[in-house]
């Protein structure tokens, strides 16, 4: 009985929900549409509540670092917990519009937005060396990668047109036409992969989500 409640009922619930979503798409049944709509809202609620679970988990890990006074780490963990608690408190002053709090807005604009852009741009430091490694014409595959990449880069850089006036035109061809078959293929095969994965989930063969090893 415990096995049924802990495992089989869960797989059955997943399969029922997948079927409801599919039936809602292929048939016009008002009752099914209403259930599917509610389930979508429920899934959104659960996923947003799961987001706070992620926050709780990180705070647990860092609290442990502080309690154990982990060398070289604990003061950073304490700083993380302090910032989390402080900003959360500021947000709670007006949960519907936290930006109405000037301190929250200042931190958001000058720290969060700026750091977000900084982290995103940090890959710029590494992409030059990555490009050097990727764009070495060791064989035909790498040579094709190099040619397409160089033309697309020179198309966007003003120096490309200075080197040869046709470079932007060729670069545009690689950008607008040359990459289309590959990108279209990725979409198609990923879609088939998703369908196969979905059917495996529907049949209870895919169990990784529940903390179990995927069944054969």
């Amino acid at each position, binding site marked *: 009985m415990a096995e049924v409640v802990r*495992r089989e009922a*869960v797989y059955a*619930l*997943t*399969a029922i929900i997948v079927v409801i*979503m599919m039936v*809602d798409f292929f048939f016009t049944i008002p009752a099914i549409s209403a259930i599917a709509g509610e*389930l979508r809202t*429920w899934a959104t*609620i*659960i*996923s947003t*509540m799961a*987001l*706070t*679970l*992620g926050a709780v988990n990180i705070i647990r890990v860092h609290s442990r670092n502080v309690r154990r006074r982990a060398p070289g780490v604990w003061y950073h*963990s304490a*700083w*993380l*917990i302090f*910032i*989390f608690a*402080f*900003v959360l408190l500021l947000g709670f002053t007006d*949960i519907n519009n936290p930006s109405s709090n000037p301190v929250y807005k200042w931190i958001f604009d*000058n*720290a969060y937005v*700026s*750091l977000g*852009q*900084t*982290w995103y*741009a*940090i*890959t*710029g430091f*590494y992409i030059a060396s990555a*490009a050097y490694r990727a764009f070495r014409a060791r064989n035909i595959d790498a040579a*094709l*990668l190099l*040619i*397409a*990449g160089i*033309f*697309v*880069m020179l198309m*966007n850089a003003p120096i490309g047109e200075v080197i040869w006036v046709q470079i932007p035109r060729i670069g545009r061809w690689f950008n607008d*036409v*040359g*990459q*289309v078959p*590959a990108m*279209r293929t990725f*979409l*198609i095969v990923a*879609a088939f992969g998703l369908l196969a994965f979905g059917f495996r*989930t*529907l049949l209870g063969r895919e169990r990784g989500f529940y*903390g179990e090893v995927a069944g054969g």
Partner: protein
Amino acid sequence: MGYPTTIDGILGIWTALALMLFVYSYPLYKENQLFRFAEHFFIGLSLAIAAIIAIQTTIRLAITPLMAGKFYYIIPILLGFMMYFILHRDYRWISRYPIAILVGSSIGLGMRGTIIPNILSQIISTITPPKAGADALSWFNFVYIGIGTILAVMYFLLTFEHKGPLLYPTRLGRWIIMIGLGAYYGNTVLFRMAMLSGRAQFLLQVLGLVPF
């Protein structure tokens, strides 16, 4: 937007600059305490903002309807709290129920949402010829995309070994994929460098060397 004139504005851009330099001290020098300070600051900040947004969404989607008389909205709220059992070894199985709803609806929506745009529309676009009177380049592009897509899809036939009659088509397919990845990577390199130059511009703006 000009250079800030208020105290909080000036303090804001200099704080942003300091945090940026703390972060870039890692790639420019090596891992150090200032980098770790900025790293933990960002994680704490992002977590708090994510938690605030999650609470806002929960209030809007669950608490407000519940207060308005839709009492069955207590179920998704309880399911949301059931997720927290994932932290307890003995009662972890309880968290499987909300996960089942999340997975079921995500897979269901994903499966139904992928057939038309990612399979049918892509095939229709591939086999639709140019309009009458189109130039030679348009026809060349049509043939290249059509044959290229078929060859590239053949490369993903993983249930057969790529030899015999499949050897050359799949090799050509791999070359087509390489051209696509090269163009994509070229765009990625440029985009990342543009982001980095944006940060360099911010540095010069804060120092007053270029206008805001």
